[in-house]
């Protein structure tokens, strides 16, 4: 009676909360383990059939779909919340009020490795000081999403930055260095607002928008708003404990997402998810692309169309 869950560290706080409450209501009869391997790592295990549920902070990719297919593994895709991937700087940083996607690209693209090492090189208005970079580890969905959104290609990034699967390492690093810039899930920023400053990002419409629940909901925080998911192995759902867990999760995600500082989806999204499950609507609505800039509404329409 073990429900095995692994994957995204971004999704982890929600899953953990659900798992905790679920185990309490089941009085220990069902055990839930939640690993933190990152979205990519989670999918690798998932597609080998080692886990029942995979947490993901981006949609499943074509390669992962192929792996799953090869292993005969089918899955349900259930969005559970929205996150604002947040670009953060040190609060003492006086020269940055906002940043454009182009500037972010100049800093983070693979070609910048070893070349773009000072702020001045990105924008002459900025000081002649070194840039210190902090980002998510290579197995994480956050990394995939950020590289796709900023550099236009998943996993395309410069390599000379402090990379960690452990977002708190990044919080530490950025909070102790004026010249630092980095990115991670909103929740980590929300818990550390005293130590960090979230940088408004200029959206395609040309507005500089800071990450927040409202800006995610109204779709103005672009392109770094992203849905987060769980993927459930179709075979596992036959096991009563997994089914029970997923149902429990769908009912309680909204509450827990809010509690751990994520943006919950409209209630309809969760019932829709349950419906898919009951009707056996398997597969993804993203077609294996790491799409950026999908708004909540868009997601809802796509899900409804599955």
């Amino acid at each position, binding site marked *: 009676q073990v429900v095995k869950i692994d994957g995204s560290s971004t999704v982890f706080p929600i899953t953990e909360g659900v798992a905790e409450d679920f185990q309490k209501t089941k009085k220990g009869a069902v055990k839930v383990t939640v690993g933190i391997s990152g979205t*990519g790592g*989670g999918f*690798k295990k998932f597609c*080998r059939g080692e886990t029942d549920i995979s947490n993901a902070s981006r949609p499943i990719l074509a390669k992962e779909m192929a792996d799953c297919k090869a292993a005969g593994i089918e899955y349900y895709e259930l969005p559970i919340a929205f996150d604002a991937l947040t670009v953060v700087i040190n609060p003492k940083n006086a020269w940055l009020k906002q940043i454009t996607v182009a500037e972010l690209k100049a800093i983070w693209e693979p070609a910048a*490795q070893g070349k773009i090492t000072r702020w001045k090189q990105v924008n002459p208005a900025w000081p002649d000081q070194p840039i210190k970079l902090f980002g998510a580890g290579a197995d994480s969905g956050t990394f995939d999403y950020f590289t796709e959104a900023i550099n236009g290609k998943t996993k395309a990034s410069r390599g000379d930055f402090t990379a960690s699967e452990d977002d708190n*390492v990044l919080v530490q*690093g950025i909070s*102790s260095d004026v010249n630092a810039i980095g990115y991670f899930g909103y929740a980590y920023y929300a818990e550390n607002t005293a130590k960090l400053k979230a940088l408004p990002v200029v959206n395609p419409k040309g507005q500089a928008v800071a990450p927040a629940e409202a800006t995610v909901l109204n779709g103005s925080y672009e392109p770094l708003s992203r849905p987060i998911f769980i993927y459930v192995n179709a075979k596992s759902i036959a096991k009563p404990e997994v089914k029970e867990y997923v149902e429990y999760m769908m009912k309680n995600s909204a509450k827990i997402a809010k509690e751990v500082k994520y943006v919950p989806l409209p209630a309809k999204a969760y019932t829709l998810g349950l419906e898919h499950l009951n009707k056996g609507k398997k597969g993804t609505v993203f077609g294996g692309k790491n799409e950026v800039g999908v708004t909540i509404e868009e997601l809802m329409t796509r899900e409804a169309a599955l």
Partner: protein
Amino acid sequence: MAVAPFDNPAPAGVSLRGEARMAELARAKLARQRRERLIEAILFLAASVSVLTTLGIVYILVRESISFFAAVPIWDFLTDTQWTPLFDDAHFGIMVLMSGTLSSSLVALCVAIPLGTIIAIYLSEFAGHKTRETLKPLLELLSGVPTIIYGFFALLVVTPMLQKIFPELPGFNILSAGLVMGVMIIPYVASLSEDAMRAVPMSLREGAYAMGSTRFQTAVKVVVPAAFSGIAAAYILGISRAVGETMILAVAAGMQPNLTLNPMESASTITSFIVQVALGDLPHGSIGYQTIFAAGLSLMLLTLCFNLLGYWLRKKYREAY
């Protein structure tokens, strides 16, 4: 006459003599030997577990590394100046991790070797019996603290302190991790060196004092040279520890693949790379999975060199007294 032994034929005072008696004894010996051989074989198996462990390590590391080097030319591995194995544009320059490993070890050893040696000399030649017996165990406690705790100590206590002195210092840096690692290694160096100095016979020390030496002269001119092989072994163990230390670096040194020997920067080491990847998934069979084994193999070879050097030193200079 003698009490009958439990399973041997009665000895003296028995009817048999000469040849017949000898034949009887030969049989008894054989029976006993068989039992002892069995015990010996079991003990031998236990002793071989260590060899099996090594073989296991080598097998696993080499097996995965072979597939790794099938994909990555060994020349690139040794000469590339970038380390981005899991990125879209993958580079596999082990030098980058090596540089982190070396600079962090160097910082640690700059702390541990001088301090460890001087502590060993002090404890063995200067301190009284009571002082030694209380301080040495206390010092050894330093090596009992889990290293992950040192890691957070370095990150949250030492780095901010250092930043007061060097405002330039980044939040993650080799210096702070190395210093703390050095303190952690002190007991290994001090304790083993002290043991080696203790083992120098008192007669040698008395010889030196009888010539009119001071404590310092006795320690430096007679005891330390006599204990040289033991002290060298202690240093080598210290080096192995520094090179292989993982959590302190993973937590406090930044995990940033950075080809530099400057301790004021943050860097990734072989070990911190391995845990970093292990913290994510270990996609069995992928190049990422094999990369950590290739890195592990490099690390293993590095420590093996040091350990063999240590073994050789011990053999060569054993018991100079």
